[in-house]
């Protein structure tokens, strides 16, 4: 399938089946200057229209720019197959952080999201699975109670129903506004991943831009198969923190998908246009295994 053709399929999906999409204007939240996109990897400036036509992949360097969670689901799941879990879960304010509630209210309005992850069940080329997609528009997809709880429940549902789970990760790390409670979500989600694994079930991680901090240091790194999108940022510590320590600029490919592959922390790098096909094949190959 050619790219243009694929884009049309995506466009049909995006416009066709998404209740999530109806109430918001994506272009308004993505970049203030919505005509142009500056690639964070190669620094070339390209027309947003060009980027959209290319599945939001930089035509100059192949950097896979961020997608919204609804866009991602449309791109991966069979049409009309997705049903969402815990759609109304909202975060509380465990350490009474000032303005936390207000900030979130604004984000809910501008993104149409309730928090930084959407989870649910779907089919991918007919294969049933649990899927979770993080959305960096919402507080840089940091993990607080809601993200931790929804990911944990997604694992538990997959374990109970003997389903594979696919998580598209993106995160700035722990949700600091929730203090120590956010740190504990790392243990909670990793524990749920352990139980799913003990049941002999398949967990695929797809690391997207940016996968960092406490999410890298918990469930994102625990997939049986770890896929990364080309050129995306993946790491544990913040680049600036490290640069501050060593007092020198780090190379451009530091903490990239390619860096992770080279050092043995990702199984494969898969382009967006092949992601759905790749995942469908991997799911099929795991169909007969896994008797607990």
């Amino acid at each position, binding site marked *: 399938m050619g790219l243009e053709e694929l884009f049309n399929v995506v466009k049909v999906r995006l416009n066709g089946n998404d209740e999530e999409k109806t109430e918001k204007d994506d272009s308004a939240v993505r970049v203030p200057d919505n005509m142009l996109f500056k690639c964070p990897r190669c620094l070339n400036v390209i027309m947003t229209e060009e980027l959209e036509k290319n599945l939001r992949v930089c035509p100059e360097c192949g950097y896979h720019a961020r997608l919204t969670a609804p866009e991602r689901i449309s791109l991966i799941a069979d049409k009309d197959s997705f049903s969402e879990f815990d759609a109304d879960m909202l975060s509380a304010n465990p350490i009474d952080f000032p303005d936390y509630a207000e900030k979130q209210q604004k984000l809910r309005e501008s993104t149409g999201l309730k928090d930084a992850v959407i989870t649910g069940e779907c089919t991918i080329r007919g294969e049933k699975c649990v899927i979770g997609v993080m959305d960096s528009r919402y507080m840089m997809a940091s993990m607080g109670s809601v993200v931790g709880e929804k990911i944990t429940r997604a694992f538990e549902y997959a374990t109970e129903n003997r389903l594979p789970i696919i998580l598209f990760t993106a995160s700035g790390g722990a949700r600091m506004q929730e203090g*120590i409670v956010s740190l504990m979500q790392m243990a909670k989600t990793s524990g749920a991943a352990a139980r799913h694994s003990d049941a002999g079930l398949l967990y695929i991680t797809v690391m997207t831009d940016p996968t960092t901090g406490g999410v890298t240091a918990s*469930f994102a790194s625990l997939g049986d198969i770890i896929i990364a999108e080309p050129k995306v940022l993946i790491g544990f510590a913040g680049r600036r923190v*490290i640069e501050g320590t060593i007092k020198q600029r780090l190379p451009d490919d530091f903490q990239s998908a390619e860096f992770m592959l080279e050092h043995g922390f990702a199984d494969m790098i898969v382009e967006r246009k092949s992601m759905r096909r790749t995942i469908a094949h991997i799911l099929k190959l795991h169909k007969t295994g896994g008797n607990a």
Partner: protein
Amino acid sequence: MEKLNKLTPYERLEVVRHKGRPTIRDYIPLIFDEFWEMHGDRLYGDDGAIMGGIASISGIPVTVIAEVKGRNINENKDSNFAMPHPEGYRKALRLAKQAEKFHRPVICFIDTPGAFCGVEAEKRGQGEAIARNLMEFMRLRTPVISVVLGEGGSGGALALGVCDELAVLENSIYSVISPRGFASILWKDAGREKEACSIMKITAEDMLELGVAEKIIEEPFGGAHNDISQTAENIGEFLYKTLHKKMKIDIDVLLNERYTKFRKIGEFIE
């Protein structure tokens, strides 16, 4: 009965960063009958920021895994100011698996500003190393007890903190990021460290209230440094009691309780 020496969160931060704050090296000879240090992760190297070995407490063999703060500049050079690299966490996991094999309980001592942030740490998979520990400790088929001795900094602390029971020394702190980092990221002003301390909920009492810890271990008036033997005795007593309690529980029941302990943490509305 409210004690008179309750310190503010910021004062506690100062206490745990106090030069004389006892470290694991002070405590080990006071708490354990014997201790045999074991080195290396069998994969890359031996990280001085995490020490581990086999010990005995009142006759019970246990595996001890601890983050090591230095008491002087030379010790800190060796232990990297208690900021572990991936090989430190992997050594911890290796020793924990060894303990599991021989049905020894594991005792972890947490005392770190956080996992080390550097080029080599990234290359060797700092994120993966911590993640792996969280997953494997959650299903480790032997009792795990953790104690925060001073600073419990972020994922670098949690990597030794997935346990059946967590105790926190009275003046210790446990946090998602250092108060300074918190202020600098959320308010773009590292100078507001004190204010960060007061709202972050980092004290031992906060940990009990939030369900993160089960026990506060009392410190002598003014802090652990004022009477190291007394502090060690308090820690030892807690460990001995808790070991007896946890060793009696069927391992599958214990693993369910461990999972549930973390499963419950989180505040949301639905």
